[in-house]
């Protein structure tokens, strides 16, 4: 199972529809400070089910909706779609491509779609749980926090090990 593409629309600084197509192997994302690179990581975490606004550097979920600039109005919804190549049937469904979409509106309500039909967050989570890309299972090393595993208490550290077991 691998990522094919990521589409952002109204998510944080990605006011406009933007698509990243990921090849096999190693992809680097580069650019100046504050241009949106870590926001791409936030988008992937979010579409895979991250529920804590603080894990996305915000204080409430609506903080991920594009909030406008000096020259452009805010929008009412954030949407991220992640497309997986499922040729290996790692995800237990009959499609060779699996599209996961998440939306959030200004009133805080969220929508989840699996291959463009509405589903619940728990359906998504169950689907992804054994694939290693469920939120919590995938390997993420966050900016400025790489040595957190060294700083943590012996007990907190254990949680990461238990995930792998």
């Amino acid at each position, binding site marked *: 199972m691998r990522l094919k593409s990521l589409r952002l629309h109204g998510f944080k600084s990605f006011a406009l529809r933007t698509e990243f197509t990921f090849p096999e192997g190693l992809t680097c994302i580069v650019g100046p400070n504050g241009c949106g690179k870590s926001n791409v990581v936030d988008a992937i975490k979010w579409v895979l089910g991250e529920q804590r606004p603080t894990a996305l550097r915000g204080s409430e979920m609506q903080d991920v909706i594009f909030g406008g600039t000096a020259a452009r109005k805010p929008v009412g919804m954030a949407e991220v779609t992640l497309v997986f190549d499922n040729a290996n049937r790692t995800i237990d469904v009959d499609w060779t491509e699996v599209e996961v979409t998440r939306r959030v509106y200004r009133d805080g309500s969220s929508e989840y779609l699996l291959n463009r039909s509405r589903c619940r967050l728990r359906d998504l989570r169950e689907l992804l749980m054994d694939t290693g890309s469920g939120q919590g299972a995938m*390997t993420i090393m966050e900016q400025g926090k790489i040595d957190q595993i060294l700083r943590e208490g012996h007990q907190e550290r254990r949680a990461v090990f238990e995930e792998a077991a």
Partner: protein
Amino acid sequence: SRELFVSTFEKIRENFRETFRRLFEGGKADIFLDEGQDVLEAGIDIVARPPGKEPRSISLLSGGERTMTAVALLFAIYKAKPSPFCLLDEVDAALDEANVERFATLVHEYSTESQFIIITHNKRTMSAADTIFGVSMPERGVSRRLAVRLEDVGDNGEIRAA
């Protein structure tokens, strides 16, 4: 279950010893379950000794040594249960060029097994990539994606107009 945790822990431990030696070109590191506690509840201790140095608390390690040790441990856990893709955000920030070289070579090897998405300002890390995406804000506050070739990147990681 008890056996599952212990066997996973032992696998991670072996990976950690090996990955640390690889990233430091020597030295020695290990992880231990805290003594006197049940295996299903014991906390986890880490020791690390860069080559030629004496073992001492990991708090005394330098910034770059801590990054390399943490990366070795996180990849040891990854190798025990590889995820289909890995997201690394400016992991190389504290590394000198010799360490970036070892880090980039290691990640390049893993990228044949899993997809890697790496955010970086470092040109050596970028040179290990199959694809480079640029993100920029030609309109302030609004992000856009642009294709970037390694030749478009300055020595200091800045993107020059193609």
